[in-house]
Each structure stands twice: as structure tokens, then as C-alpha cells.
């Protein structure tokens, strides 16, 4: 076994979060940053997201996924960050020890002074939404279909039914159509679409693909290959309405039913997880419950824009650099509590008010004309107004404490309320 490496910082995952985190850690003064990626190249999921619409906040223009990744890959090449490709991290211990493996070096032991988790998220599959029926070939997630079509050049099917109206599903409805397949329709169990209006318009309406709200798939017909699905309308309890069943012949059922932060390593390292986001609890510099382990991007919660992923990663990168260069003991945290019409908030903890903090959150239900606030006791630390908020689109409030002192602050509350004016 080779000798133990002791870099300043190890970033796990080379997607948008890992790229921005490694760059930020490096430019904040860390000389020895190691980025570990399991794929043959950097970029994470971006290389297969060939559509445009990325970067409107960070770059003030709309790029394709590969273009967005390329900017960071190019910038990283100008630093001394070391990149280990085709390397899998097998274990992360609470004392930050990493066990990784690849076919060149075999097992690699690393004892970094800081770790940034940037493993992203993974798709929910058929088994997480409990679809009855056979278990044939041809049931595929939207991201897997995207990989086949855009990277491998393979068509997963010719006649497609889509369950779920998340953005990737909508994007893939257009992609399947442009590549010559027929998309029979998109079925969404909720009474509102999961994806952005822009994608409903440009991916479905442009191609006359019907969207059936309050519908679900009740049976998958097989047995060898998908031969069709049964769909049905659902009632308010999301239960199928008897008599509304319809059989649709198809060879592919594509699922776009949500994403889950990927946290196997976080659990190995005993990080405290937030039951709502399914990601680790983080503080204002994206540090987790374990000293020296940071997390950013979709590991923490599933962001809807890559620009937000980049922001969170830059904070984590700077945080890791501070931790290594200054090494101050951590203060006890103040908890950030979701208030009225707030499902969850990131960060969930605040240890220091020395810098302004952006609180990202999701609302529980759509609401018009609102005032969004961050409060500590009676004091308002940040506020913003919005004409409209709804669950698929994250909201953000910048907040600050004049003077940066946090004495006496017990908890922070983020809430959304009707705008009185």
C-alpha cells in the first residue's frame, strides 16, 4: 500500500459543485487541493444536459450544460488542483480519513485537513414510487434516458409514456421527440406541474405533447419488455379513481419522479442529516456537524438551478480554506427554523454573523404577493418581497447582523407571510 497522503483539502465529486468548491478552496489560499471523481471526465451530470438555460445568474447568459462545465474545467486547468479521475471513494471516517480506489493505484489512504462533499444527487426510481405490475425492460429514469441518448447515442425506446413532470422529464420529452420517438403523454400525480413553465411551453406545448395532471400509472404491462401501461386519474388523496383507467400501448415508461441527495459517505462519516432535505445539516459556511467536513450542491438539498449549486460550493470552498488556514475552534450554532409557509431552509445552522448570509428555502405551497423575512427574536435580519412563490422554485433572502455580533440570538426564523402593503 502506498504512503498516506495529507492534502489540505479533498473534494469528493467533480460535477458543478466539486469544480466550484475546488476552485474556491484553491483561490482562497490552499496549495494542496485534491479533487476525486469517479467518471472518466469532470463535469458530473452537466455533459449530458445538452439543452440551454444554465448560468443565467452566474454568467448572465444562458449556456448549455457542457458549456457551463467547460468554463470550470478550463479554469481548474489553470490552478494546481490535482484531479484524480476514475477513482471511487469507498469510505469517509468521522476523523476525515478517506479510503479511495482506482485501477492505477489500488487502494489509496488519504488524511486530509478538510473534506468537501460534492457527490450530487441521484434519481428516484420505480421502487421509490411503488409502481405495480411486471418488472420488464423499458422502465427507465429520465437521467438514464438522457445519458443513453446524449452521450452514448442509443435510443432507449420508440413509444414513450412519461410519469412525473420534473424538468428533466420535460426536457427528455422534447429530446425523445426530436430524435424520432413518439411521446404519448406526460402524467403527473399532483394537480400542478413539477417543472418550470418555460419547460412546459418549450418542451411539451411546442411539440403538442399532452400533460395530464392528477394522473398516475397504475400498472406496468410486461413481462419481457414494457408492452404498455395503465394510467388513471387520481382523487385528492392521490388514489386512483375507479373507472378512469386507460390502457396505453408503449415500449418505454420514463420516470421523472424526483431526486435524492446522495449521502452514503455522509452516513459513513456520522454526519447529522436533515430529515426534510435528506442532506447533511450545514452552517453558514457549509460546514457539517463534523468538524472539517463541508458539503455543497445537491448533496445538501436538491437545488433547482446549477447557479445556486455553484454559489453553495464557493462558500464551502472558502469555508474549508478558512478552517485549514485559521483553524479557529467552532462556536456553538444557532438553529434556523422554518416558519410560516417554509418547508426547509439552508443553511440550517449559523455559527457566525461576521458575513452576510444567503438563506435558501422552499415554500410549502404556492402563495401570491408575499413578504419573506429572516428574524432573530423581534429583530428582522433580512427581508425580500415576491409577487409569487411556489415549491418548485427556491427562494432566497440575504441577511446580515449589523456589527456581526450574535450574543443573545437563540434561534432564527425564516417565514413567508402575505404582504400587508
Amino acid at each position, binding site marked *: 500500500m502506498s504512503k498516506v497522503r495529507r492534502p489540505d483539502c479533498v473534494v469528493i465529486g467533480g460535477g458543478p459543485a466539486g469544480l466550484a468548491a475546488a476552485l474556491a478552496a484553491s483561490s482562497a489560499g490552499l496549495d494542496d487541493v485534491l479533487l476525486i471523481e469517479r467518471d472518466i471526465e469532470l463535469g458530473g451530470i452537466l*455533459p449530458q444536459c445538452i439543452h440551454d438555460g444554465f448560468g443565467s445568474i452566474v454568467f448572465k447568459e444562458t449556456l*448549455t450544460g*457542457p*458549456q457551463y462545465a467547460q468554463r470550470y474545467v478550463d479554469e481548474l486547468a489553470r490552478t494546481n488542483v490535482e484531479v484524480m479521475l476514475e477513482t471511487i471513494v469507498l469510505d469517509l471516517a468521522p476523523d476525515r480519513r478517506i479510503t479511495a480506489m482506482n485501477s492505477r493505484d489500488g487502494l489509496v489512504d488519504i488524511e486530509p485537513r478538510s473534506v468537501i462533499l460534492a457527490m450530487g444527487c441521484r434519481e428516484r426510481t420505480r421502487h421509490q414510487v411503488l409502481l405495480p405490475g411486471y418488472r420488464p425492460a423499458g422502465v427507465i429514469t429520465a437521467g438514464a434516458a438522457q445519458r443513453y441518448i*446524449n452521450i452514448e447515442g442509443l435510443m432507449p425506446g420508440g413509444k414513450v409514456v412519461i410519469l412525473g413532470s420534473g424538468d428533466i422529464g420535460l426536457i427528455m420529452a422534447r429530446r425523445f421527440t426530436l430524435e424520432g420517438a413518439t411521446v404519448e403523454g406526460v402524467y403527473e400525480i399532483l394537480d400542478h406541474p413539477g417543472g418550470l413553465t418555460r419547460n412546459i*411551453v418549450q418542451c411539451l406545448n*411546442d411539440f403538442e405533447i399532452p400533460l395530464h395532471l392528477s394522473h398516475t400509472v397504475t400498472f406496468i404491462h410486461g413481462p419481457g419488455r414494457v408492452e404498455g401501461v395503465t394510467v388513471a386519474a387520481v382523487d385528492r388523496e392521490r388514489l386512483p379513481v375507479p373507472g378512469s383507467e386507460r390502457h396505453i400501448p408503449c415500449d418505454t415508461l420514463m420516470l421523472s419522479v424526483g431526486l435524492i441527495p446522495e449521502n452514503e459517505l455522509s452516513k459513513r462519516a456520522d454526519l447529522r442529516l436533515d430529515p426534510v432535505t435528506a442532506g447533511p445539516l450545514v452552517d453558514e459556511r457549509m460546514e457539517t456537524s463534523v468538524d472539517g467536513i463541508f458539503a455543497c450542491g445537491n448533496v445538501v438539498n436538491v437545488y433547482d438551478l446549477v447557479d445556486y449549486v455553484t454559489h453553495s460550493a464557493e462558500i464551502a470552498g472558502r469555508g474549508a480554506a478558512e478552517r485549514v488556514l485559521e483553524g479557529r475552534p467552532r462556536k456553538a450554532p444557532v438553529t434556523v427554523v422554518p416558519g410560516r409557509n417554509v418547508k426547509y431552509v439552508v443553511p440550517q445552522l449559523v455559527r457566525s454573523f461576521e458575513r452576510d448570509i444567503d438563506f435558501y428555502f422552499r415554500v410549502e405551497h404556492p402563495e401570491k404577493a408575499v413578504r419573506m423575512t429572516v428574524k432573530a427574536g423581534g429583530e428582522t435580519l433580512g427581508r425580500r418581497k*415576491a409577487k*409569487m412563490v411556489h415549491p418548485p422554485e427556491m427562494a432566497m433572502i440575504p441577511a446580515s447582523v449589523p456589527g456581526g455580533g450574535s450574543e443573545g440570538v437563540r434561534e432564527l426564523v425564516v417565514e413567508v407571510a402575505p404582504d400587508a402593503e
Partner: protein
Amino acid sequence: MRSSHEFTCINCPLSCPLELVEEDGRVLEVKGAECRLGEKYAEAEFTDPRRVVTTTVTVRNGTLPLLPVRSTEAIPRRLVREAVESLASIAVEAPVKEGQVILADLLGTGVDVVSSRDLNTLSGHK
């Protein structure tokens, strides 16, 4: 003849339902927009809807079999299918740089199609 057309604004989360009223192709009014962006959007969607085209082309000798490409600007929406079909028969040789023109003047629109990324040759990999 006077008729009306419905659109959903894509500029912000409000997603205003828009109704555009026209007479013989001349826009008379846009109803339902909370702001000026919605009116402009409905007019553009009615008179000259445009979309950015993204697809892939074949790449020979590359680390991957496909190269993602994009139109540098939006082209008329009615040309999108034809644009993707015309790009399907194109094959390029690796290495390719991001921004490299893959097809100039897409369908006579004056808009170029460029590579979305660098793609190295298999032998140049690693």
C-alpha cells in the same frame, strides 16, 4: 378577421396566462400580463417565436461517440425539427474545441451551430 390566442408567460414564476388579440395578423392588445415583459413575450410568440437548437452530432475518434452542439442564437421555431434532422447526418473528427463552428448558416438563418464542449481524441486522453 379578429381572433385571440392564448400563451403562458415564461419570464417569472407568476406564469401569467396571456391572451393576445389580433386582427389579420396585427396585434391589437395583450391581456393578462402583470408586467410589460409578458406583453412583449406574447407578441414575440405570436409574430416570430424563436428557439435555441441543441442536439448532438457524431464524432469520430473522440473519447465519446457524440458531440453536443448548439445554435449560437435562437432560430424560428418552425425550423427546429428540420435543423435537428439536418444535423443528424453530420460527423466531425476529434479533437474539437468548444465554440468551434460545426455548421455555418443553419438552414439559411445566418445562425451558426457550434460545439458545446472540448472533446479530445482517444489517444490524447489522459
